[in-house]
């Protein structure tokens, strides 16, 4: 029954689909809460996590998770949480994490680590183990999302209203950050640390152009994600492009196409109104 798992291409398609399933709702929440840059920061700092993980002979994912959780925990300790997420703070953490990570990786014996795979992802090299980790993490995140969806949406719309109406805003916010840390740790394998944020932001932006409700935006983001995945994997398979970058470029191409279509459609309906 699991014979299909022997095919590397099917394994990577499955991994990609699982990633899209969780990237769509998480990406929407992050765009709504203006947290896209946080995922980028955690992604960059993940290189340090990978390096430390390998150095301590742990699975890289645990190193990444530890570093990401440490960062979100430190940020949440700062009293005015939102100002802690200022661009400057995040940029410093982001690039220190990346630079420190590359130094640590450089100290390791060269055959133990594929830096390019860390940075840009290695979807076509997805193992059964990777697939299982991705599946379990996604299931966990989806359960939490479903349980707290209304609260997360309320928090995204207006922090003040959510708080005044009795929602535990700080707890929810911290839960959200912890979930982003976990998401970054598992998406790293597929997208590479430098491209995680792209997969959270670009399909979401395309979806926003048409959506009328939060849930619709999530569903459309997933559609755009799947389309980008298809473009990326086929490009990678046929022309030997790197998969992660190919997915991101496909996603952006779809965004531009969507923008063009909405512009033209918008201009047409304008034209109809004016006799």
């Amino acid at each position, binding site marked *: 029954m699991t014979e299909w798992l022997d095919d590397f291409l099917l394994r990577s398609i499955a991994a990609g689909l699982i990633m899209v399933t969780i990237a769509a709702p998480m990406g929407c929440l992050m*765009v*709504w*809460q*203006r947290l896209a840059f946080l995922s980028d920061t955690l992604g960059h700092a993940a290189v340090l996590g990978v390096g430390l993980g390998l150095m301590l002979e742990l699975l890289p994912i645990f190193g990444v998770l530890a570093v990401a959780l440490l960062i979100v925990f430190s940020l949440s300790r700062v009293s005015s949480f939102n100002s802690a997420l200022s661009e400057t703070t995040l940029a410093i953490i982001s690039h220190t994490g990346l630079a420190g990570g590359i130094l640590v990786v450089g100290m390791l014996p060269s055959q133990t680590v594929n830096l390019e795979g860390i940075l840009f992802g290695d979807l076509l090299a997805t193992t059964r183990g990777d697939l299982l980790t991705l599946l379990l993490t996604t299931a966990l995140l989806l359960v939490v999302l479903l349980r707290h969806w*209304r*609260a997360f*949406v*309320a928090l*995204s*719309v*207006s*922090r*003040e*209203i*959510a*708080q*005044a*109406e*009795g*929602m535990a805003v700080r707890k929810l916010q911290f839960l959200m950050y912890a979930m982003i840390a976990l998401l970054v740790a598992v998406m790293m394998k597929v997208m590479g640390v430098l491209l995680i944020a792209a997969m959270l932001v670009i399909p979401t932006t395309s979806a*926003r152009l048409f*959506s*009328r*409700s*939060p849930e*619709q*935006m999530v569903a459309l983001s997933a559609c755009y994600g799947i389309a980008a995945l298809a473009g990326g994997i086929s490009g990678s398979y046929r022309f030997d492009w790197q998969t992660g970058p190919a997915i991101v470029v496909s996603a952006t191409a779809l965004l531009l196409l969507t923008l063009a279509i909405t512009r033209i459609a918008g201009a047409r309906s304008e034209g109809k109104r004016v006799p």
Partner: protein
Amino acid sequence: MPNELLRVRDLSYSLGGRRVLDRLCFELKPAQITTIIGPNGAGKSTLVNLVTGLITGFEGEIVRRPGLRIGYLPQKVYVNTLMPLSVERLLQLTRSASAGEIDRALAQTEVGDLKQRQVRSLSEGELKRVLLARTTLGKPDLIVLDEPTSGVDVSGEIRMYELIRELRSQLQCAVLLVSHDLHLVMSQTDQVLCLNQHLCCSGRPESVSQHPEYLALFGQQAADSIAIYSHRHDHVHDLAGDHGEPRHD
């Protein structure tokens, strides 16, 4: 506690070593409109946040009637424009409501036609009315409005205060509001709390407007403007001098 919704005794609050509120005492009674006035930095929003329970760590006591339901409209509502969200959905953000309840709430603040609109396409004034409708959904005993007319034009302001009065009589709920618009609000109010860190004076608008501390804060002009508005007409005169129908706009 007989009758009152909320009783405040010797309420003090300090922020960073500075005393923002100093030994306040007042009560909120059912179906009464209470207005907090005072200069910038008087602690008006802080007081509101204490009453709604948004901030804690005060001295003194705030006693709420058991099971008191509060509807709250914050002063600045940053509503996320990145999220596609209909007005109907905004009303159900933290709790579900039936279609009938939503229609009734929107009709009360005269924005029934906005139900299907996207929140990001609303003007500031429309958004305020939608959010005011939102506060009435949970059948509140007390509606707390922090400067409900900021971002609303002058004719909108007058209508907004009329709406608040109508809400009070329809829902039989108490209203606590913060306002800068002295002359507009005073005539619509049962109780005024004149705040400047301490409670300068409180009571009915007519008595507050003659109080020396009120006059020191806002001047004689403000006192006069209350007199003008307290006998505002509820009918219109046409050119022939006949009385027309009461007008609400």
